[in-house]
Structures are given as structure tokens and as C-alpha cells.
């Protein structure tokens, strides 16, 4: 299985650029944007509007071209052959026009539009890479008769053996790319409202996401560390971006100091692992651990522990969670949306990747630790959320609780467990982006109105927002027919399948406790009284689009969970293969 991977070339690593295209899209996008903005600080109004409008068609074309660069043929080539070239190009032109009009109707700024475009291109590239490597490639009849075996694709090492492109990495990559798209839409509304100029936020967003993609596919501890730092440093700055608000600065500083601390733990853990196994490469580590009987494994275990501390900090698992409420409360709300979705997903991807891919033979050593962390995380997340008075702080604790649920899936250390982690991370991403999206709109200028009392009577001020937040909270509570329920179901399946009954019971109890909390908020939105002078809330089209997309995904895949479930299960096979 592992032997099929190419032997590591010592001199120059083989680079499969096409498989790296999702990361490249984000990184190149970030660089282009910052270069453009450093030359053109501010454009005349009419040019700006035209340029923004052009982002739509350019994005569509870029998605199409990138798909062609990555794949063997441009996307939709089949469709082109079916309908004939003239009809196809007329259709393409229509799509371009519609996309331009759509961007215009969104009233979005150029930087945000550009970032959304880059996110979509990255996502499209991910889809194409997925099809390249995980779908059976159709072979022609002649090939079949000539005895060519169908190519079922499979995971490849894209950068020497340092970076693996497999289903697991790609699904997480796609989720992170979509999180970029949704966060950028929320940023647009937020930054304009707060009067923050400049493209830095978007550049950091894209860079951070690129780091997340690197983490999700890293097959080497050093690459993992690079990805983690790229991701984290960008997010530290984003958290502190609202320089006029002391809370934002404080949150950024807190996040930075504690984050640096945890990075140090992580590095030290990597050093220990290197000391114990003589390799930083996950494949190398696994081969070493499979072929050598370690008599004294103290250093290896210390390495596990330190890695868990470092990654536990990033996923906000108890007892390394203390930063979360403060940072979430202080940081700009759209940034929190990104932190709770993409950053958490990337960190879980790395956690699962390292422990499941490299240390699976030692699962008896690390499973109990994750078990204990999961129990603590679930209970702290559920019970401390109840006593919060601030909506963002409450959601911070609830995100800790969700991390606990994902840890339940990690703890199982089975294929089903990994699939459930993928499912949960994807489902939670959209629920949490939606929830923070609504909060961002409701809390208004300076995030002043972010107390739970400010949600009282939300239904009177904006029935649509109240309805959306209701569904997101019900989803987080794990009410059936939302993705939240299916995600919990998958995680619990994994736990029960691994015979961790008590963990499943504790998880369900914490789910009940947090459901109580969410419903209390929902009820207050409908029953609470509103001040007479409270204005109805107007929702900017970009924020509305982000919330709407998140809502559709949360409910749609709650009703029909099959596709994501299939995706999550495919992702597993690739990781193991």
C-alpha cells in the first residue's frame, strides 16, 4: 500500500503542479491582489464599478481554464461535444454576461469580488483534481480492446513525498475554499460598515486558506508546520485588524501569544518524533514504526503528547481552549466565522492526518488521551455555554463543544471515524459561517450589539434573519433534517462502532444540554420585546448571499445527506490507499 508511493527522490522532488493548483490559485490570488492594490490605491468610482463587474466573467473563465490546465480536457468538454461548438460558446457567453450582472447586483467591492473569485477558482481546481485522482477514468472502447486497464486514480504525492493529494486533503481543501468564499462575502459588508479600507484583510484571508490547504495535505511534519504558521499568522493579524477597537487588538494579541506558545509545543513534539523515528516524513515514520520494534518509547510518547497539545490548541480542545472565548468575542465577527470554520477544519485535518496516517499502530497509546480530551471538551463546551451573556462568547463555547464531537470521531481511529470527522467538519463549517454571518449583521456598527439580549425580538426587526439563525442554531443543536444531526449521527456511529459507548452517551448528554441553550436563544428571538426605537435591520446583498448559501447547504444536505456522506467515505479510502 505504502510501497506504491514513489521512493523519495533525494535531489529534486517531483512536483505535480496540476495537483497543487488549488493552493496555487489561493496564493497567486493573494499576491496579485496585494500587488494590484499597492500600485492602484484607489480607483475612480466608474472604473472601480466596471472592474468589479468584470470579476464575474473572469472568474468563470478562470475556473474553466484552470479546470483545463489541471485536467486532461477543459471542463464541460462533453457538453461542448454534445450541443455543438456554436451553441456551447453562445451559452458560455450568456453565462459570462449573467455572471457580470450578478456581481453588479451584489453591490460588492472589488477586493471582495476578487477574493470570492479566487476562492471559486480554487474550489473548481479542487473538484477537477478530485475527478482526476478519485474517479474511475472512462476508457474508450479501443483502449479496452487493447487491454488498457481503467485508471481508477488514487492518492499521489504532489511534492516529493512531502505533500499528499488524496481525497481527505481535497475534501478539506474544498471546504476551506468555500469558507473563503463565504467569509469574503461577509467581510465585504463588515469592512464597509466599519470603514476599514484596504485589501489586506482579503489578502490575509487567501494566504491563510492556502496555509490551511497545505496543512490538510501535508505528509511531512515540517510542511505541516509551515502550513500551520502560514494559516495562523495571517489569522492573528486578521483578528487584530480592527485597530480602532481595543477588543479586537486584545484578541489578536492574545491569540498571537498563545498561538506562538502552542506552535512551540508543536515544534518540540516534532523534534521528539524525529528523535524517536529518525524521520519527519509521515510515510517514513510509519515505515519505521512498522519495521522496528521500539524498546523504549518514552520519546515517541512525549512527541505524541506535545503534538496533541499543539494541535489541541488550534482545534480549541479542552484543556487548551482558554483562548477561544476571548478571541472569538473580540475579533471581528466575519474573522471569527473564518476561524471557527476553516481554521478549525484545517487543524482537525492535520490532527487526523498525523495520528491516523503515521501513528495508527500506536493507537492504544493516544486513543485514551483523545477520549479524555473529547469528554472534557464536550462537557466544558456544553455547560459553560449556558452561562454566557454574549452571543459570540456563547458561540465560542459551543464551537468548543463541536470540537468535542469531532474528537469523538477522531478517537474512534477507524475509517468510519475519519469519514465522520470529514462530514462533521464540512457540516459545521457552513452552520458556523451562517451563524456568525447573522450575528455580524445583527450586531451592527462596532459589533456593539453582540449580547444575547440584543437578539431578543429579532423576529420583529428582521423575520428573515431570525428564521435563518433559528435554522442554524437548530442545526448546531443537532435537530434532525439538518446537516448538524447527520454529522452527530456519523460521529456517534463511529464511536459506537469502535465500542466507545460511554463516550457516545456523554456526547448525547452534552448535545441535550447545548440544545437547551440554542432553543432558549431561538425562543427569545421570537418572544423577546424590542425597544421602540430599534430599527429594522437591513441586510446587504453580499451578507444575504453568504447566509443564504450556508442555509441551503445546511438544510439541503440535512435532507439528502447521501452526497456528502459518499464524499466523506471516498475521502477515507484515499487516505488509507
Amino acid at each position, binding site marked *: 500500500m505504502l510501497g506504491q508511493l514513489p521512493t523519495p527522490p533525494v535531489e529534486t522532488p517531483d512536483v505535480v503542479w496540476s495537483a497543487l493548483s488549488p493552493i496555487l490559485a489561493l496564493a497567486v490570488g493573494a499576491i496579485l491582489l496585494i500587488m494590484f492594490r499597492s500600485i492602484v490605491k484607489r480607483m475612480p468610482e466608474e472604473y472601480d464599478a466596471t472592474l468589479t463587474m468584470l470579476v464575474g466573467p473572469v472568474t468563470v473563465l478562470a475556473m474553466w481554464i484552470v479546470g483545463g490546465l489541471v485536467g486532461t480536457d477543459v471542463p464541460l468538454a462533453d457538453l461542448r461535444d454534445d450541443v455543438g461548438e456554436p451553441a456551447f460558446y453562445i451559452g458560455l457567453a450568456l453565462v459570462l454576461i449573467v455572471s457580470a450582472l450578478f456581481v453588479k447586483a451584489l453591490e460588492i467591492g472589488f477586493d471582495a469580488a476578487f477574493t470570492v473569485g479566487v476562492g471559486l477558482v480554487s474550489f473548481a481546481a479542487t473538484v477537477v483534481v478530485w475527478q482526476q485522482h478519485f474517479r474511475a477514468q472512462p476508457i474508450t472502447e479501443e483502449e479496452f480492446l487493447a487491454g488498457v486497464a481503467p485508471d481508477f486514480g488514487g492518492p499521489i504525492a504532489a511534492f516529493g513525498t512531502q505533500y499528499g493529494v488524496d481525497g481527505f486533503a481535497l475534501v478539506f481543501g474544498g471546504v476551506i475554499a468555500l469558507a473563503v468564499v463565504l467569509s469574503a462575502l461577509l467581510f465585504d459588508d463588515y469592512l464597509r460598515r466599519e470603514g476599514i479600507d484596504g485589501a489586506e484583510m482579503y489578502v490575509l484571508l487567501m494566504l491563510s486558506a492556502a496555509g490551511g490547504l497545505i496543512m490538510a495535505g501535508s505528509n511531512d511534519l515540517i510542511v505541516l508546520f509551515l502550513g500551520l504558521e502560514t494559516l495562523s499568522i495571517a489569522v492573528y493579524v486578521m483578528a487584530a485588524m480592527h485597530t480602532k477597537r481595543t477588543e479586537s487588538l486584545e484578541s489578536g494579541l492574545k491569540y498571537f501569544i498563545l498561538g506562538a506558545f502552542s506552535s512551540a509545543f508543536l515544534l518540540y513534539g516534532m523534534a521528539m518524533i524525529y528523535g524517536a523515528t529518525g524521520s519527519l516524513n509521515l510515510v517514513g515514520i510509519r515505515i519505521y514504526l512498522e519495521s522496528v520494534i521500539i524498546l523504549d518509547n518514552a520519546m515517541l510518547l512525549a512527541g505524541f503528547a506535545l503534538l496533541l497539545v499543539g494541535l489541541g490548541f488550534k482545534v480549541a480542545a479542552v484543556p487548551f481552549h482558554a483562548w477561544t472565548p476571548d478571541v472569538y468575542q473580540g475579533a471581528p465577527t466575519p474573522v471569527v466565522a473564518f476561524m471557527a470554520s476553516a481554521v478549525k477544519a484545517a487543524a482537525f485535518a492535520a490532527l487526523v492526518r498525523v495520528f491516523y496516517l503515521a501513528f495508527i499502530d500506536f493507537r492504544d497509546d493516544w486513543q485514551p488521551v483523545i477520549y479524555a480530551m473529547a469528554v472534557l471538551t464536550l462537557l466544558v463546551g456544553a455547560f459553560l455555554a449556558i452561562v454566557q451573556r454574549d452571543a459570540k462568547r456563547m458561540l465560542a463555547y459551543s464551537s468548543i463543544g463541536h470540537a468535542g464531537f469531532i474528537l469523538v470521531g477522531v478517537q474512534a481511529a477507524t475509517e468510519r471515524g475519519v469519514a465522520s470527522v470529514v462530514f462533521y467538519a464540512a457540516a459545521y463549517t457552513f452552520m458556523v459561517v451562517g451563524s456568525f454571518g447573522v450575528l455580524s449583521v445583527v450586531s451592527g456598527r462596532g459589533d456593539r450589539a453582540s449580547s444575547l439580549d440584543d437578539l431578543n425580538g429579532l423576529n420583529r426587526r428582521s423575520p428573515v434573519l431570525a428564521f435563518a439563525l433559528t435554522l442554524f442554531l437548530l442545526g448546531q443543536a443537532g*435537530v434532525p433534517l439538518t446537516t448538524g444531526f447527520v454529522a452527530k449521527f456519523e460521529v456517534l456511529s463511529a464511536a*459506537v462502532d469502535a465500542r466507545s*459507548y460511554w463516550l457516545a452517551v456523554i456526547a448525547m448528554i452534552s448535545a441535550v444540554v447545548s440544545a437547551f441553550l440554542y432553543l432558549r436563544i431561538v425562543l427569545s428571538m421570537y*418572544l423577546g420585546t424590542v425597544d421602540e426605537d430599534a430599527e429594522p435591520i437591513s441586510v446587504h446583498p453580499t451578507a444575504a448571499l453568504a447566509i443564504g448559501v450556508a442555509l441551503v447547504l445546511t438544510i439541503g444536505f440535512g435532507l439528502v445527506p447521501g452526497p456528502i*456522506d459518499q464524499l466523506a*467515505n471516498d475521502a477515507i479510502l484515499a487516505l488509507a490507499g
Partner: protein
Amino acid sequence: MQSLLLAAEGGSASFPVLSALVILPVIGALTLLLLPNNRPENFKQLAFLFSSLVGAMAIWILTDFDTAHAADFQHQNSHTWIESLGISWHLGIDGISLWLVVLTAVIFPIAIIAIDAEHTPKAYYAWLLILEAGCMGVFLALDLFAFFVFFEIVLIPMYFLIGQWGHGERAYAATKFFIYTMFGSALMLVGILSLAFLNQAETGVLTFNLIELAESQAIATTTARWIFLSFALAFAVKVPLFPVHTWLPDAHTNAPTAGSVILAAVMLKLGTYGFLRFGVYLFPEAAVWFAPALVTLGTIGIIYGAIAATMQRDLKRLVAYSSVAHLGFIVIGTFALNTEGIEGGILQMVNHGLSTGALFLLVGWIYDRRHTREISELGGLQKPAPFFAGVFMVVMLSSIGLPGLNGFVGEFLTLIGAFAAHRWWAVVAASGVIIAALYLLWAYQRVFHGPAEGENATMKDLTFKEALIMAPFLFGIVFMGVYPKPVIERMEPAVEALIEHVEFHVEDFESPRPGHLGPVDDHGDDGAVSEEDDH
């Protein structure tokens, strides 16, 4: 598995009527949400339209029901839902669920038409329709995942109905209701998963299909008992059985009238139906093993509910506690594990739905007219509202279990069954019938007799519309009291099959049939029924 799926596919060529029963109310709710707010009166009409369509379909299913094959699941409808977990959208109806489906389909349009929403009608009727879909789903689901989804989803509309349209301490009551029931079902989810995965470990197939799991019985005895316990807790909360019943009076008292009607008529049956379908059928051995404990709890519930009802000063709370007592009869009937007991239990589920549903409706109308439910403030209502009093009297007598009305048939059968299985508990439970007569007649006396003073003297009698609404209840009460045969003969094959299933899978267990023990000298089940008819 293969043949089952094939059969289902063959059936699905025709109209998937059971799926329609579940989906139609949801479509109704979505339609309501999309309507503009400027014509509020339309919401009620539309909700009534959708729920009566469901009612019509249920009646059609009833007429189309194949009594000869009542033990088989009919109109089966199956689609893969989550492939990797072996989960499917699988619905079916047999003699046991038939009557509960019909009850649900009939009660909902009545509850919708009978009471106007006090405010925000759009959301109110939308929640009611979603509640209907959930209840239907529970009674129809043949897949444990689907069952759990529906079992949980009903909490949400009820929570909002109590919380938003309730009275008094509605937020407290809604939360209490939610926490109790969700806590119960939380453990059931772990139980469901354990069952599916342990079954997979034994048989190699991961499935949540109820029939396959029930037929394979692959799980070790002790484990099955634990899993049964997790199911039983969920159902006990929902029923509610004695120690976990405390949410019920609060929820009933503070809920809006339609909420109380549905809670009593349909939602409490989710628990008793669950005991039957997902307790006894899935875990026959554990059901036999736990039967004495559950019968004990049921008996305690009967006596406790009756005594508590006697002491209530609030008319609605009194009816709520009487529910605890009535549901106790259903439980002792079910866990008598013989034909009479289970049939009586199912019959009693329908009876309780009719009589207590009607009682809540009548109490709600009294409250609308007098704005109080305190028994001490009411009195002499018979004079200004004689017709109202008459209807109340009939419904109340049905609830007491007067021979000739439906309550008697059900209670009698459960007691026969229970007597054969657990003689002394049945003796104690029978005294509950007497206390029921005491508190209900006493309440009736205080509310309707005596001099009418103050506002009581001018209370409006039943309007024509209200009388029309009560008509189906009265018809059901009298019809099932006088001639229960059509009802019983449709459920009997399914009940017999269930008991055979238990006897087949549990060693050394023979259903305690009344005939074998002597106290009832009839030979079969028909005998017991025809004896009924003589009264």
C-alpha cells in the same frame, strides 16, 4: 434484504401514499411560509385544506386496508437514504399502526379548524403541519434512523407551540418538556446505533431496517436488555410513565388548546406505540424480562395519576393528570404480552385520543368563554349552556369508561390481559377506574351543577360550528363503544403475529392467555369482544 427491496420497488410503482402522508403537511407548511402576510385568514384555511387532504388519504388507506394481511406491512415505500450506513426512507403500515395513523390524520384537521391562532397565525399553522408530518412519520417509519428523525423532530414544533402560543409559565413548561423528552431520546440514539453495529458484527450487514433487525435477533441477551432500557427510557418519558411524568401537567396546562389536544391525542401515543413496535418487537426477550417492572410503573401511574387528578383545582391540569392514569392502562395492557392486553392497549390509545382530545377541546372552549380554568370559579354552567354540558358529560363518561362507550372496551381488554399476566397488579389497576369516576364526576358536578353566578350565568352554549367539530369525536366514542369489532379485527392479525414473534424468540415464554388461567371463561379473543357487545 434483496427481496424486501424488490417488493418495495414493485409497490412504489403505484402512488407512494405513505410518503405523501408525511410530505404533504410539510409542503403545506412551506406554502404557508411563502404566502404574504396581508391575508391572515387564509393561513387557517390553507392549513385545514392540507391536513384534511392528509385525513382523506388516511381514510382511503383505511378502506383499502387488506385485513387478511393485517400482520404484514402494506403500502411499503423504500428509498436509500444514506447508503454507507444502510439507512433508507422506509415506510409501511400494518394493523397496529393503522389506527394511530387514522387517529392522527383525523385529529389534526379538527385541532386546526377548532381553534384560532391567538397571534402570528402563519407560524402557528406551519408548526402544526410540521408536527403532523413528524407524528405520521413516527407511526409509519420502518427504519430506525427514520423513526428517530421523526421522533425527535416532533419536539421542535411542540416546543414552539407551547413556548410561543402558550399561557402562564409557557417558557418554563416548553423547556421542561423539551429537556425531558430530548434527554430520553438522546440515549435511545446510542441504543439504536449499538443495535445496528452489534447486529452488523453478528450478521455482517449494517442495516437500520426494523424488520431485518427484529427478525435476526442476533444480539446477546444482556446487551439487548441494556439497549431495550435505552429505548424504554425514551418511550417512558414520552408516555409518560410514573417517575418521569412531571413534564406532562406543566406542558398540558400551559400549552395552547390545540397543542394540548394534539399532545394528548397523538403525541403521548408516540411513546406507547414505540414500546410496542420498537420495544416488544425489536427486543422480545428484554420486553418479557422488563415486563413486570413496566407493569408496576404503569399501575403506579394509574393510581398516582388518579389521586393527583382528584386534587387538582385547575380543570385542564385535572385532565392532564387523568392522562397519566389512562396511559398507565395502555402500558399494563401492552406488557401483559397477550392478545387481549395488547389489543386493549392499542384500542385505548385511540380511545384516549378521542376522549381526552375532546376534553381538552371542551376545556379550551370553557377557557375562551370564561378566561379561567379554576374549578372553584366555575359553577352551574349547565343552566346557560345545557348542550355544552351534555356533550361534556358524554365525553367525560367515555373517559371514565362507562360501558357502551369506547373507554370501557379498551380498559376492559387491558384489564383482562393484565389479569392473566399479573393478577394483583390488575386488581390494583382496576381500582383506578373507580377513582377516575370519582374525580371526573366530582369535577363535572362542581363545574356544571349548582347555581350559576356572575359570568357563569351568561356563558355561551356550544355554537353550531363547535357542535360540528365535536360530532366526529362523539361518533367515534359511541361507535367504538357499541361496535368495536371492525377496529379490533383489523389489528388482531398484527397483534397475534407480534405475540407469536415474542413466543418464537423467547425461550420458555408462553403468552399468558386469559383462557388458560380460568378467570375469564371464554375461549378466544372474539369471545371477549362479543361479551363486550352484550353490555
